[in-house]
């Protein structure tokens, strides 16, 4: 039993769990990470478009994004000893008409109010930044400090370093329930084992919901099955992260030369998961739809060959931002879920701040807008 004890038990071996484990262990805390699947980073952590953005974010989570890009991302590869392929070459959110322009303007205004360097630019300036875009692109929001990184490698880099620092990662170990002991969350039950910690971090994506329910905590979220695709390596074209006003697609060109794009078919809520264990399956119609979306903006990519597609679940929160931090009703519990598809870029900041929360009792970035108790009926 002793060996299953640690200062902190983390449920979920995705990038949030790995980053939190890394920052906790860096400050000397013992950590056990429990991952349900066979692979570290098996959920959204390895299935996203790699955006490290501030622009386009809700003001409640923007401080975390800005903090991460300023303080953590620039030195991350060196700190973790693995090239995370981080680029801080800006984010273009593209539009083609007045309706798009209005959407982009709204996002920009809100971000500027929070102190972010983001502005609207016209077709001419867009072409200067990215000459490969279609002439139909007439407006964009431009945030020069945004960027992208390799999500699969970044997740595994946190894992690698945390493991080196003594964190115990256990895969194939789905958590069945949590248990309060003498007024404080203490025990984590799996099918065969019981783990015990002073704190329990639940960072298991949508699967957090049934786990948290075992101690009477319910995060209002649902699952959506979305997809990404990747092309063969192409000659280097551009370094920016891209998105569109209507979210037709998002993505970037990787250091390897391949383009990684994500997108939607519009049927995400009802998509059937045709996949096998350990990996959700694609819908046959989504990749074609993403391709059409991309080619509307990037006709030059029409001959780029797609070598792979993949699907992953978003843990979509009722109000579009994560649930993060202590839960007052359950001392010892730390929640980190419902990232709604934009968790990767803020993951280092979330991990670092949760380590502070657990060790120092408080964060240095204001995350009060993301607290568990915020959900209220509309009237």
């Amino acid at each position, binding site marked *: 039993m002793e060996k299953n004890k640690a200062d902190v038990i983390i449920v979920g071996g995705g990038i949030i769990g790995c980053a939190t484990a890394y920052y906790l262990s860096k400050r000397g805390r013992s950590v056990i990470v429990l991952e349900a*699947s*066979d*692979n*570290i*980073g*098996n959920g959204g952590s*390895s299935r996203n478009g790699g955006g490290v953005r501030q622009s386009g974010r809700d003001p409640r989570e923007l401080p975390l994004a800005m903090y991460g890009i300023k303080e953590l991302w620039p030195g991350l590869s060196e700190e973790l000893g693995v090239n995370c392929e981080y680029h801080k070459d800006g984010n273009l959110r593209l539009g083609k008409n007045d309706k798009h322009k209005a959407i982009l303007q709204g996002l920009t205004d809100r971000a500027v109010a929070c102190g972010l360097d983001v502005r609207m630019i016209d077709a001419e300036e867009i072409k200067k930044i990215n000459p490969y875009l279609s002439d139909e692109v007439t407006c964009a929001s431009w945030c020069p400090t945004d960027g992208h990184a390799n999500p*699969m*490698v970044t*997740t*595994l880099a946190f*894992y*690698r370093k945390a*493991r080196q620092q*003594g964190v*115990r*990662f*256990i*895969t*194939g*170990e789905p958590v069945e329930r949590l248990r309060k002991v003498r007024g404080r969350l203490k025990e984590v039950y*799996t099918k*065969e*084992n019981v783990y015990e910690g002073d704190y329990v971090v639940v960072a298991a994506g949508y699967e957090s919901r049934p786990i948290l329910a075992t101690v009477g905590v319910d995060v209002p979220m649902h699952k959506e099955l979305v997809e990404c695709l990747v*092309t*063969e*390596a192409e000659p280097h074209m551009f370094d920016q992260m891209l998105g569109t006003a209507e979210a037709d697609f998002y993505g970037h060109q990787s250091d*390897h030369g391949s383009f990684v794009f994500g997108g939607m078919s519009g049927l995400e809520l009802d998509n059937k998961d045709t*996949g*096998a*264990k*350990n*990996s959700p399956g*694609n819908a*046959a*119609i989504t*990749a*074609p*739809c993403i*391709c*059409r979306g*991309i*080619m509307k903006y990037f006709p030059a*990519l*029409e*001959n*780029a*060959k*797609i*070598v*792979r*597609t*993949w699907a992953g679940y978003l843990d979509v929160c009722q109000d579009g931002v994560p649930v993060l931090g202590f839960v007052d009703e359950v001392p010892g519990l730390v929640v980190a879920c419902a990232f709604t598809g934009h968790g990767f870029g803020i993951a280092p900041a979330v991990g670092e701040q949760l380590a502070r929360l657990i060790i120092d009792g408080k964060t240095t970035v204001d995350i009060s807008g993301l607290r568990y108790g915020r959900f209220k009926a509309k009237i």
Partner: protein
Amino acid sequence: MSRIIDRSMDIGEFVPQPDDDMLICRCEEITKGEIRRAVHDGMWTITEIRRYLRTGMGLCQGQTCSRLVKGIVARELHISPAELEPATSRSPMRPTEMKVMGNEEA
């Protein structure tokens, strides 16, 4: 065959081998030494190795190297290759141009 695996288990030290510079993944030009090193970095599944190194993620999609990679990882972990779950299969089975993929006929 999901199994509980404690990633802090001792698999021994990384010992350099004379053929570590042998190319294994022809498309992405990944060597045996890089694969062995990745196992010691904690990448214990074929999926993790792929994500970490890009083995089998090139144009041929692992047609040639998947069996070789499996053998190397298994040997490093002192297990049988059969215990390693192969990488997930994903559409498209052959590289497909974006303009073709986007051109659906009912």
